[in-house]
């Protein structure tokens, strides 16, 4: 291989590229199906990757929403539980001027005969 042969090869390649004959010159038509298949695979890979990204982003958003709901649930639960304690209820009734107080006798259970 000489410098002139290398130069000739480069020149021919450039000419072929300019004329749009490069793939024909290297006989790539034999591999047309393979190239198309490769292209399809690449397209599928990119598309699936984007969809996975989108799904994972949605998962992240859902997790954040669930976490927010959990926090709200805990806060509300604490508020409600505090309100239903006997002494709290008694204090609120007293504040409202109610005469209602804690029972002094147990409730009677009605039994079926």
């Amino acid at each position, binding site marked *: *291989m*000489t*410098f002139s042969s290398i130069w000739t090869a480069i020149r021919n390649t450039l000419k072929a590229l300019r004329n749009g004959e490069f793939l024909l010159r290297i006989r790539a038509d034999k591999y047309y199906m393979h190239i198309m298949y490769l292209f399809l695979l690449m397209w599928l890979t990119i598309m699936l990757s984007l969809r*996975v*990204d989108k799904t*994972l*982003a949605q*998962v*992240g958003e859902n997790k954040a929403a669930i976490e*927010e709901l*959990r*926090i*709200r649930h*805990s*806060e509300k*639960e*604490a*508020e409600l*539980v*505090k309100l239903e*304690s*006997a*002494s709290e209820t008694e204090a609120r009734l007293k504040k409202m001027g109610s005469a209602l107080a*804690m*029972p*002094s*006798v*147990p*409730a*009677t*259970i*009605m*039994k*079926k*005969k």
Partner: protein
Amino acid sequence: MTKRRSEIQDTIENRDRIHVVMFFLSILFLALGVFIMVKIVQIQAGYHVDSSVVDLFRPRVQKHVDKPVRGRILATDGRPMAISAPLYDIRMDCTVRRQEFKDKNNQAGEDAWRAKAGELAKKLSAEFRDRSAAEYESAILKGREKGSRYLRIKNNIDLSTLNRLRTFPLFNEGPNKGGMIVERHEERIYPYDSLARRTIGYVKESNRIGLESSFDHVLHGREGYEWRRVTDRKTWIRDLDSASVKVIDGDDIRTTLNVDFQDIADKALREQIQADDEVRAGICIIMEAKTGAIRAMVNLSRGDTPQTVLWERDNLALREVGEQGSVMKTVTLVSLVEDGYVKTLDQTLPTNNGFVPGGYNQDVHILDYQRETGRRDITVMHGFEISSNYVFTWLAENYYGKKPQEMFDHIYSYRFGEPFDFDISGMGTPVVNRPGTAGWSKTTLGTTAYGYSMAVTPLHVATFYNALANKGRMMKPYLVESIERNGKVLKRFAPSELNSSICSPATADTVTRALRAVVNEGTATRLRSAKLAVAGKTGTARVVLSPEERGGSRDPYSDSYGRKKFQGTFVGFFPADNPKYTILVTVYSYPSHRNFYGGTKPAMAVRSIVDQLYALDPAWRPELVPSAALPQMKKEK
């Protein structure tokens, strides 16, 4: 020949081609080597990081640590007593967009920002009501002038408030334009405030107490992590190519505590001791007789000075080791009855003017008894009712004087000699001065018989009385009944025994009769008209003062002003004929000239608790059974 020459010519041409290729390759590698060497020297000698390039080289994945949600502590009916939820601190970067407006000479933009700050100030003032709108506005604008990037707006707000704040002017523009900074921190919420707070406990960096500490390994859960990468749309998502560990939230623990019982006990105790600033502390234990499950454990104390409010500061029920006084006479009585030395409670002993030979103090109550009755003997039952120290010293000296170890063997079998395994760590270690120990003297046997010379915790005492309520079967007190995850029980803790039989059922019945007499005729008559029959014993003990408290006094029980510290106790069980609960209330005083008897404040607190539990507990609900069936109405055909 020509063919041979042609072959030689081809060989020479091939060699030339190989030489050319090898030449270029060697030049290429040489140049590459030189370049690498130069680059190494350049990097080592004088490479400086270009900040504009740093971001490009920074890894596009980040490690994200997921912290587990701490498990809840539940009451026996599932009501939460401790929950985890985050709280938020709000700060403000007052300098946002200031430079941008300045660079672009955009005075209108700056004015608009300041106008929004004014609106924000109004909203903040209306939301928190802690500062006026003018004060908020002044703080924000001053912060902008001075370049404050971390102005405190509010600490510890909840999520609902945070979400409202996010709709306010400026704050709705995000951190880069509005300057809102949100800092989240996990907090433990106790919905019932101080109720059972010391029993529930807490976990802080250097301080861990209560159930929160003992069950931290269950409540904490396991941290997880995942690697996250940024997408083209600038959202962070999980990097599936990297390893991750799933976070496991903490499990819940369901306690034996009953919120209503705890509430009633807390309130009843406060009613008795709140107004009396000579009372240092008060405790209450309510235990289920059959199982040993603790339904309420109240530990209210004032701290070092009477001015401080009552609060759950220390778990005295578990930790306070002290001489318990006359409540320990029951221990002596059980031993005497069990050993057959006291065959009947009507057995008599001589009164001897309240003197027991051997260096014991005179019991003045016996002198009163002799004067009132004119008798020179006293029954064991009456001695127990009036809580006579003389009677129990005489009985101990008379029956165990020559073999004291026999009485101490009983004391050890009642588990007074050591701390037992309990769901909360830190149980006080009892002190028992048995024969052969340094604390043993010729009066130790007699003083032990009426509750001195031996120091135990209130929980020990409650456990002993619970065994009597249980016909001699001593149950181990416990506070946690199960470990749960999302409502599903992972592990259940069954009741267990400390001693299957500390005495025979007959002995337990005999002593219960004596305890009932204490309430009906003795030192606890305040409980006589309780809505459920109570059997129990009072105890009033002087507390040994520390050298600082004594202030030069030679008496270990009083200071230089003659003031004494007392602990008054009532311990018993109810209903007396079929016990369901054991209850102990102890009140501790500051040094005082007053006496704090077990038959006063503690008995009154017990009375209040028993009456309220009677109305509340389904066990005592009367049943209404119809005496006749309602007539069935039939439609006429």
